[in-house]
């Protein structure tokens, strides 16, 4: 299988968008910094000291003065990383659902498959990878997969997994315009639009009471769809 040389860790930036994640951010940042030297937390207008906690944990922090949404925060983090010369960028959730060890898998997959984008998938890792997933969440995500397949033609098994890796080129090509949760669909649209090579990588998601409380609820899925459709027409 053709591939590229592995990127050195110092050339990789991890972007963590965080809004009021003070209980989790120190551990998340600490786990990432244990293996990767470049972690930027985008504090999206938090009011609970998330930014300060991230700095104390050793992460670089870029702070939005007001809350603009996860999509906007990730776009800010990506821009920061690109300005710092990142050769690859990994997005990582701030609520503790993702495992730092999976970052290595995504980065390795970019090189091994000569891919532009590596997408984490909780559905490729077998039942154990999603053992704590609420059934309603599983059905909602499957519906999202079907929607994406109908809308973009992309055969992706997990369309709303925040663990993704991009090469510098891909991160620069993608238009990061959706401010809120519709960014997940927008990223897939951009992958299709720019004909980017992508690979899915099995990752594990840890559902805890804290992360479930912070995550999207069922009805918000409709808002995501509406935001996405509105963005299609208005931007």
């Amino acid at each position, binding site marked *: 299988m053709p591939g590229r040389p592995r990127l050195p860790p110092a050339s990789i930036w991890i972007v963590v968008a965080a809004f009021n994640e003070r209980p989790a951010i120190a551990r998340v940042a600490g786990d990432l910094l244990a293996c990767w030297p470049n972690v930027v937390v985008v504090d999206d207008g938090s009011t609970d000291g998330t930014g300060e906690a991230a700095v104390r944990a050793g992460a670089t922090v*870029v702070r*939005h003065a007001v809350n603009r949404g996860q999509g906007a925060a990730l776009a800010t983090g990506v821009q920061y990383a690109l300005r710092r010369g990142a050769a690859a960028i990994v997005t990582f959730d701030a609520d503790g659902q993702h495992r730092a060890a999976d970052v290595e898998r995504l980065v390795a997959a970019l090189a091994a498959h000569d891919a532009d984008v590596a997408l984490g998938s909780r559905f490729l890792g077998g039942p154990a990878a999603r053992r704590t997933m609420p059934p309603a969440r599983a059905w909602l995500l499957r519906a999202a997969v079907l929607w994406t397949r109908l809308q973009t033609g992309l055969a992706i098994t997990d369309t709303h997994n925040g663990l993704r890796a991009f090469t510098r080129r891909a991160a620069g090509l993608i238009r990061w315009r959706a*401010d809120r949760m519709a960014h997940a669909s927008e990223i897939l649209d951009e992958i299709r639009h720019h004909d980017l090579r992508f690979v899915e990588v099995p990752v594990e998601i840890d559902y805890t009471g804290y992360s479930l409380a912070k995550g999207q609820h069922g009805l918000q899925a409709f808002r995501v769809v509406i935001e996405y459709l509105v*963005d299609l027409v208005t931007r």
Partner: protein
Amino acid sequence: MNLFQWITVPLFVGLAIASAVATRRGRITRGLGIFWTLLSLGAATGIWDPDSTRVAAGVLGIGRGADLVFYFAIAGGAIAFFAVFVRLRSIEGQITELVRQMALASPIVPPAGDAARANAAAGDERARPPRAD
């Protein structure tokens, strides 16, 4: 003419004139200016001569003049709502870009990585405050 017509017809004529002037001075786009001018003149005409709405409705195949006015009001409201919504989305995007550039101009880089992590692990509340980059 009744009192209602004496009050509203000049108002709508005035609005039509104001729209035309604003368009000429570049304060609103030509399309928007034409829209408001025609709408105002149409309203003035309909109020001045209520029978005109019946004639217009008949031309368009609609039964009653009142129905024509109602349909135009619905359509006009929908168009106006959409225009405002698009404008709001644009402003939201500008706000986000402004917030982003402000954030990127002042990143907070912590002290030497090992020291910061050790302090965090020890829960040392006396860790040095971060310096701005």
